[in-house]
């Protein structure tokens, strides 16, 4: 029982409780007699009122009162005085029930029900609320009721905003008041009410207001959440085209990529085109994005969002360019121009459209004749051992293809907004440093790290991304490092953030990126180049910066602490992936792989699959559980009992065409499971060290 101390009741207390129980039960019995016979006499209503005073949560009791009110209102016809007296009685009953328990849902709802009839005065309501909000300034029933009454009385948002100011001055720690402030302010900003425009001015004032609270008690969370929200409002960027494959300015030999086309057999003149945006967008199609080529090219492109969910939005979009079978000059390079022609049609999840036209171009070299792509019968097993990889063998044409750093700067108008907002953030950084110079405050440090990242995002957007290596990530990494020590219960949160910033730092420029590029010994076993991005042993817990990695076909992420591969679905060229020795806990965590249709080689050995009874990705992958996938029983190559255990493996692997898979070192990988895999993946040639068939 909430807040009641645990102690054995004395004999007297026990007796008293039984007497009180008997009394309540007899009232209940009487009440039901009236309720089940539709009796609404004065006596019956009094019994009911007594019942609700003793037990305000008794929902059937409130229902009965509503029936009684309807019955008596009908009798009163349109006599205003009788109506008023019937309803006033209800308000009284609610009030005394709330005195017993002011958290009773039924009582608050009954009051709204009565007031919604429009006959009662609302004058007393704010007075009553004051009383309850004094008793408990965080009572969310009272706050909900307050929003109901202010809407009923048409009280302007500005006035209510002032009320939250008063409440916050009374007690900075009133999160309910901060919350209501965010609701009211969002509305005032959206409607551009006088005094609440321009947005930047309002945000600056709000930041100053919340700063007072933060400086008074930096360890109280309430103000910090509001501060984070303001920060988020300030850095909200328009979505931008951030990278592409083929990259801007590159030269691609189409025959190198024929293996990546959707149907391998006949079309060798197909090239994937991938666009990556700063956030998930929708509306990419041939009317919003124009692709023009000098050579004959099918211009009716079908764009696919690369996303594991059903929103229709994605950060990464894919299409295939199909070139005509006979190029005029086989040896010549043909220019392909891509531009976001109708940017208004491209909309982010927040409903923003893009006002920024972007253009990019690359050249393609078409093969002189249709070359058949053939995997050959004697495929070698990919061996991830270190001795098979060597550095410093990069050719200049490879460089062009990994280079996603040639970005477009943004137009003048937006640049100004970014600069203004960057200035706001810079000021906040100064204040935050001032606060931290006085005391060691956990959320203060975290906020400083977030502010520095926000500043980075804003300033790089206004300068153009080329300058990104100017930024120092070192300070942010140090802050997260401190936080891991300062706040051990949330260690893994800071670790995840650390990983993302670390990757940002390491992949920020070409020079740094090249340190992680290696050449696989045998280039014939892969579809074309055998350049491997090797991010092994960096103690990463998750991956990010995917916009820099669209070119990757071979990726080694082994020996990290990776739990989630969210975002990896964007790497549409990926053929070989090494995830061994990580912390992948279930097959459902591999959901992004379902979208990697080129994936041939996968190593997930030595993870934790099968070690955990609770699957934290259970609802983040497509399955009948979340009503996102309707498996037809007759399609199963496996029987019912196996499905209830291996459903997630089925979900991930049934759509893939893997040639090599390593699962050893996971608790799930016993003999029975391997047999299941062989049934599920008939084209597989290697399972662990074993050559099949």
């Amino acid at each position, binding site marked *: *029982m909430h807040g009641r101390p*645990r*102690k054995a009741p004395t004999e007297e207390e*026990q007796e008293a*409780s*039984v007497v009180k*129980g*008997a009394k*309540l*039960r007899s009232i*209940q019995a009487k009440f*039901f007699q009236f309720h089940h016979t539709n009796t609404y006499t004065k006596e019956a209503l009094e019994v009911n009122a007594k019942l609700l005073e*003793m037990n305000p*949560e008794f*929902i*059937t009791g*409130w*229902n009965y009162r509503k029936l009684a009110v309807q019955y008596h209102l009908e009798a009163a016809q349109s006599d205003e005085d009788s109506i008023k007296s019937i309803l006033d009685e209800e308000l009284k009953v609610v009030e005394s029930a709330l005195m017993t328990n002011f958290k009773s*849902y039924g009582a608050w*709802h009954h009051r709204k*029900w009565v007031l919604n009839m429009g006959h009662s005065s609302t004058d007393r309501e704010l007075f009553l609320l004051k009383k309850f909000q004094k008793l408990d300034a*965080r009572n*969310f029933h009272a*706050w*909900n009721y307050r929003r109901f009454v202010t809407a009923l009385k048409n009280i302007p948002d500005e006035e209510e905003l002032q009320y939250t100011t008063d409440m916050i001055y009374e007690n900075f*720690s009133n*999160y*309910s008041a901060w*919350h*209501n402030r*965010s*609701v009211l302010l969002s509305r005032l900003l959206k409607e551009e009410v006088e005094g609440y425009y321009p947005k930047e001015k309002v945000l600056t004032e709000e930041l100053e207001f919340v700063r007072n609270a933060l400086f008074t008690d930096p360890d109280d*969370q309430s103000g910090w*959440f*509001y501060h984070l*929200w303001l920060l988020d409002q300030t850095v909200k960027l328009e979505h931008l085209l951030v990278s592409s494959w083929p990259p801007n300015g590159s030269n691609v030999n189409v025959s190198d990529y024929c293996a990546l086309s959707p149907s391998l057999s006949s079309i060798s003149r197909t090239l994937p085109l991938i666009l990556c945006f700063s956030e998930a967008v929708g509306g990419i199609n041939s009317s919003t994005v124009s692709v023009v080529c000098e050579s004959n090219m099918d211009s009716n492109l079908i764009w696919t969002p690369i996303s594991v*969910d*059903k*929103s229709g939005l994605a950060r990464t979009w894919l299409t295939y360019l199909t070139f005509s079978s006979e190029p005029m000059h086989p040896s010549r390079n043909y220019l392909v121009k891509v531009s976001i022609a109708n940017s208004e049609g491209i909309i982010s999840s927040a409903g923003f459209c893009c006002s920024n036209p972007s253009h990019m171009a690359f050249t393609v070299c078409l093969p002189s004749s249709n070359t058949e792509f053939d995997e050959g019968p004697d495929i070698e097993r990919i061996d991830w051992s270190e001795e098979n990889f060597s550095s410093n063998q990069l050719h200049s044409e490879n460089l062009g293809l990994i280079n996603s750093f040639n970005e477009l700067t943004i137009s003048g108008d937006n640049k100004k907004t970014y600069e203004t907002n960057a200035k706001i953030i810079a000021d906040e950084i100064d204040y935050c440093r001032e606060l931290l110079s006085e005391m060691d405050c956990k959320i203060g440090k975290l906020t400083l790290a977030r502010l520095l990242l926000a500043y980075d995002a804003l300033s790089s957007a206004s300068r153009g991304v080329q300058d990104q290596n100017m930024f120092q990530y070192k300070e942010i990494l140090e802050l997260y490092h401190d936080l891991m020590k300062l706040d051990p*219960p*949330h260690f*893994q*949160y800071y670790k995840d953030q650390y990983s993302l910033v670390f990757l940002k730092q390491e992949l920020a420029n070409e020079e740094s990126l090249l340190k992680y590029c290696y050449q696989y010994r045998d280039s014939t076993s892969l579809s074309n180049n055998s350049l491997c991005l090797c991010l092994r042993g960096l103690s990463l817990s998750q991956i990010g910066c995917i916009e820099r990695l669209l070119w990757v076909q071979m990726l080694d992420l082994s020996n990290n602490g990776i*739990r989630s591969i969210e975002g990896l679905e964007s790497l549409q060229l990926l053929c070989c992936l090494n995830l061994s020795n990580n912390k992948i806990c279930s097959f459902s965590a591999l959901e992004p792989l379902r979208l990697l249709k080129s994936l041939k080689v996968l190593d997930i050995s030595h993870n934790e699959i099968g*070690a955990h*009874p*609770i699957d*934290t990705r*259970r*609802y*983040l992958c497509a*399955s*009948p*559980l*979340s*009503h*996102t996938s309707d498996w037809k029983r007759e399609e199963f190559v496996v029987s*019912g009992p196996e*499905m*209830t255990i291996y459903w997630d493996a089925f979900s991930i692997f049934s759509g893939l065409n893997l040639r090599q898979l390593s699962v050893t070192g996971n608790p799930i990988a016993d003999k029975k499971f391997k047999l299941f895999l062989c049934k599920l993946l008939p084209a597989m040639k290697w399972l662990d060290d074993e050559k099949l068939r």
Partner: protein
Amino acid sequence: MNMLDYSRMGELAVEKHVKFILTIEKEKDSFESVVMEHIRLNGAYWALTTLDILGKLNTVDQDEVVSWMMQCQHESGGFGGNIGHDPHLLYTLSAIQVLALFDKIDALDIDKVSNYIAGLQNNDGSFSGDMWGEIDTRFSCVAILSLALLKRLDKINVEKAVNYIVSCKNLDGGFGCTPGAESHAGQIFCCVAALAVTGSLHHVDKDLLGWWLCERQVKSGGLNGRPEKLPDVCYSWWVLSSLIMIDRVHWIDKEKLIKFILDCQDKENGGISDQPEDAVDVFHTYFGVAGLSLLEYPGLKAIDPAYALPVDVVNRIFFGR
């Protein structure tokens, strides 16, 4: 493999808790019992699910429970909290959940029950709890979970239901009862679970909400439901299950939380309370045990974070047969 060392955290008094649950059922005369009579069907769900997680569901007479429960059904198809009480979505879900535990959903007139539930959807996609029109995202959740378990989600407008829930999203990434209402961990569970079973978790800002939720852990290791509030064992369910559904549960200290829950046990008479040394009740006993199950405490059946039923029960419904 960095597994937790459970021996350091104390021990779960399984036998005592089973005994506690079985005795409260018999103790009916105190005021504390009478005042809970109107939600007895919820109580049945809490008690029986706890027993199942503890591996002791066979200690109850299933036929007796089902026959009592069917008497709680109203002619409209909905269930009341007890015999003779008015029907409401909250008790209807409990009835379906209990039948699912027993693998007896077929005992229901599924169309009748699902029509009752579907009939409570409003034009804006929201759900009323009963015919008297109280609207709350709790009811959206209960309706969606019920219909999903009955495999009748097609009877409602799921898209509108999802959009209504999304309209209740707040500055902190959490959700409230109605648009504009403050985030609360219990309410967040309701909304996240409803989005989870409708494949709509992309509407959740997982990092923002995950951080807010992981900051619910206070120094004692326990979780609170809103900022600057006291910890309470029931949030071991509301917060944890939400963190699990959005895959951010590694952001809290599981070991400290297990210790907090175990510290709330009444080791003498069984049962778990909201905070150490408070009086125990079946509600917190359920949330404590379910929380431990989510924390992978050894010897417990795994519980599903959305349907709030053991994983084997949920898998049987969605993957079996």
